[in-house]
């Protein structure tokens, strides 16, 4: 039996992936009837339950980076990227304290469908709405393009291994994967997105647990033996800093720990929750799912490093191959099939979130900022723009080379630097001013883009996003302190007291 399964490993993977894609199409059709207004399309009518919201948040956060890039970082750098994971629990308590409750209340109070909406009513300023929308659009384009590229590369590998196509081109794989993504995102908007996220999240958690047990079995002595092998070769790699260095590791902890409250694809989900009090269950559930999935990140990455060092596996051509090589070589064929579907799920769940908030920025926020009102027939335009945005991101992914990587890398730090002060601090501090918000956003773009495009290397490899976040926080708080406080609308003022 094992031999038969092993012989059909590629076919099993293909069937799993096709089944998963069909499931996404099915959810798209199911959610079509449930999407009747732009509010349904962007915030699911503010009617999501605990489980769906928690998994939507977790799935959007754990992107393809978590399944491919994360293990790749562990493989090439040792323990460095654990600083990103170590910030998960504390960052979610910060989310609960700073943002989730107030965001949910303000969004219901003023029927906001996007973060720029919330910023506009908080600061009473259309220029702040426009600034937030621009930051979101820039980040979305980069993130979306990287997710589409990753999705297509995964599909290319699956199709090639199964022998369905002789040599499937990347363009063809972009077309196939984008078609499914566009279909369910256009038909069902965020409703389809969050319900596919639920399915995707469950697949990811199950796959991660099973893979971690496989990892423990690769060496007698489990994780301790893996750490011993890594430390014997390079003590730095097994130290908490890994190879990236002490200050760089701590800067990751900082920018990922505090920066999560500025991630629009995550924060927007809190606006969709049915009841404020459900937050108490949503956050722990989401953190538990994320933490479980992180086992795959640590397990595959470290074990592949140990396997290569001990001669148990040939060296990898690139670090990002760590996951796929481990799955092809060390896992049961059925499990490999599930994990490949999970990998695609991780990527698509993040992509559909970005597609939705990017569409909101174009269809809802920028017209509101420029004309003071939304466009007519917003739902129809939302569907059209969703498709166009996905196509634009696919073109960026296929034809702009290194720009994709630059925009993708720049995304988290820019969102963190731009939106942590404006949204997270702004919703908790009545003195925060619109001018300070605009300056903080401008500085986040200037510092992040300037440092990266200028090839500036910060001391000891400190992350550019961390530097941009510090600069924008200092500017935001200082300018707000120096300015004259402006009275807030009564309802916003009272909600900020709750």
């Amino acid at each position: 039996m094992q031999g038969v399964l092993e012989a059909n490993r590629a076919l099993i993977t293909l069937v799993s992936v096709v089944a998963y894609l069909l499931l996404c199409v099915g959810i798209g059709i199911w959610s079509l009837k449930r999407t009747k207004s732009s509010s349904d399309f962007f915030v699911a009518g503010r009617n999501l339950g605990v489980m769906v919201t928690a998994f939507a948040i977790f799935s959007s956060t754990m992107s393809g980076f978590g399944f491919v890039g994360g293990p790749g970082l562990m493989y090439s750098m040792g323990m460095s990227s654990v600083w990103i994971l170590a910030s998960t629990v504390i960052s979610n308590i910060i989310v609960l304290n700073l943002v989730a409750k107030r965001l949910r209340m303000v969004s219901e109070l003023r029927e906001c469908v996007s973060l720029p909406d919330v910023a506009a009513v908080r600061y009473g300023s259309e220029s702040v709405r426009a600034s937030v929308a621009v930051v979101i659009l820039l980040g979305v384009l980069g993130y979306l393009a990287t997710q589409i590229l990753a999705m297509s590369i995964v599909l290319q590998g699956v199709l090639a291994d199964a022998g369905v196509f002789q040599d499937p081109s990347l363009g063809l794989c972009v077309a196939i994967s984008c078609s499914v993504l566009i279909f369910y995102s256009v038909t069902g908007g965020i409703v389809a997105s969050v319900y596919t996220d639920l399915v995707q999240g469950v697949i990811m958690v199950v796959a991660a647990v099973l893979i971690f047990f496989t990892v423990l079995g690769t060496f007698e002595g489990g994780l301790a033996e893996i750490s011993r092998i890594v430390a014997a070769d390079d003590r730095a790699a097994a130290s908490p800093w890994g190879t990236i260095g002490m200050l760089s590791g701590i800067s990751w902890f900082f920018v990922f720990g505090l920066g999560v409250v500025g991630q629009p694809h995550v924060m927007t989900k809190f606006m969709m929750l049915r009841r404020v009090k459900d937050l108490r269950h949503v956050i722990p559930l989401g953190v538990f799912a994320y933490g479980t999935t992180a086992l795959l990140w640590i397990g595959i990455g470290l074990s592949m490093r140990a396997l290569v060092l001990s001669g148990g596996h040939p060296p990898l051509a690139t670090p990002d191959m760590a996951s796929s090589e481990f799955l092809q070589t060390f896992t049961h064929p059925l499990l490999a099939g599930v994990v490949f579907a999970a990998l695609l799920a991780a990527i698509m769940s993040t992509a559909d979130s970005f597609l939705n908030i990017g569409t909101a920025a174009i269809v809802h926020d920028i017209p509101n900022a420029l004309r003071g009102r939304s466009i007519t027939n917003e739902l129809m335009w939302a569907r059209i723009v969703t498709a166009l945005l996905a196509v634009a991101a696919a073109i960026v992914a296929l034809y702009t080379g290194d720009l994709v990587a630059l925009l993708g890398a720049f995304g988290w730090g820019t969102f963190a630097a731009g939106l942590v002060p404006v949204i997270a601090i702004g919703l908790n501090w009545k003195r925060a001013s619109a001018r300070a918000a605009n300056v903080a956003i401008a500085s986040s773009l200037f510092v992040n883009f300037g440092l990266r495009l200028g090839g500036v290397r910060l001391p000891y490899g400190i992350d550019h996003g961390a530097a941009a976040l510090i600069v924008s926080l200092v500017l935001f708080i200082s300018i707000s302190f120096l300015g004259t406080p402006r009275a807030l609308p009564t309802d916003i003022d009272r909600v900020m007291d709750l």
Partner: protein
Amino acid sequence: MGTLLFFAAALLALLVVGVITDAGTGTAVSHPDFASLLRGADSGTLGAPMWSGYAVGLLAIGMMWVTLLVGFRPGHWIGTAVAVWGAWYVFAFVALMRSYRTYALGETAFFAGFTAPSAWLVYGLGLSPWILLIVVTAVFERAYFGPEEQARFEEILTTSRAAAPGHPDGHTDATKET
């Protein structure tokens, strides 16, 4: 906010001094046998002095701690609990740094699958906040958002919606279509 500004400004000052003095240009090196692997330099610190690790780490934790002290009902004991927990988190970070110092001198101890300083990272900084999260979840209705807050919110909602058609207080809904 003054405390948050203080922590952020101190971090910015350290960063500016580092840039001006052109500090820390070292990088990881390629593995001699495997091209896709990196190896650390200077025992993993890339030449950064230990005091800078303490300073940046404690300032970053300080900023997070300040943000944890927001959002709960004034006077509730959860405030004290968060403060105490902040002290534990500082202790865990200091323990990591001290454990790393021993590790860098050549002593290799393992704990639950990782080297000792890495175990402080995984279990101390990474997983111990679960205790706080469980406590926060348990007291959520009493300390963060209970029936009293829900009632006040509903009253604000009702008042705001009643005021919306004529916009007497100057606000409009964010989703108004033409």
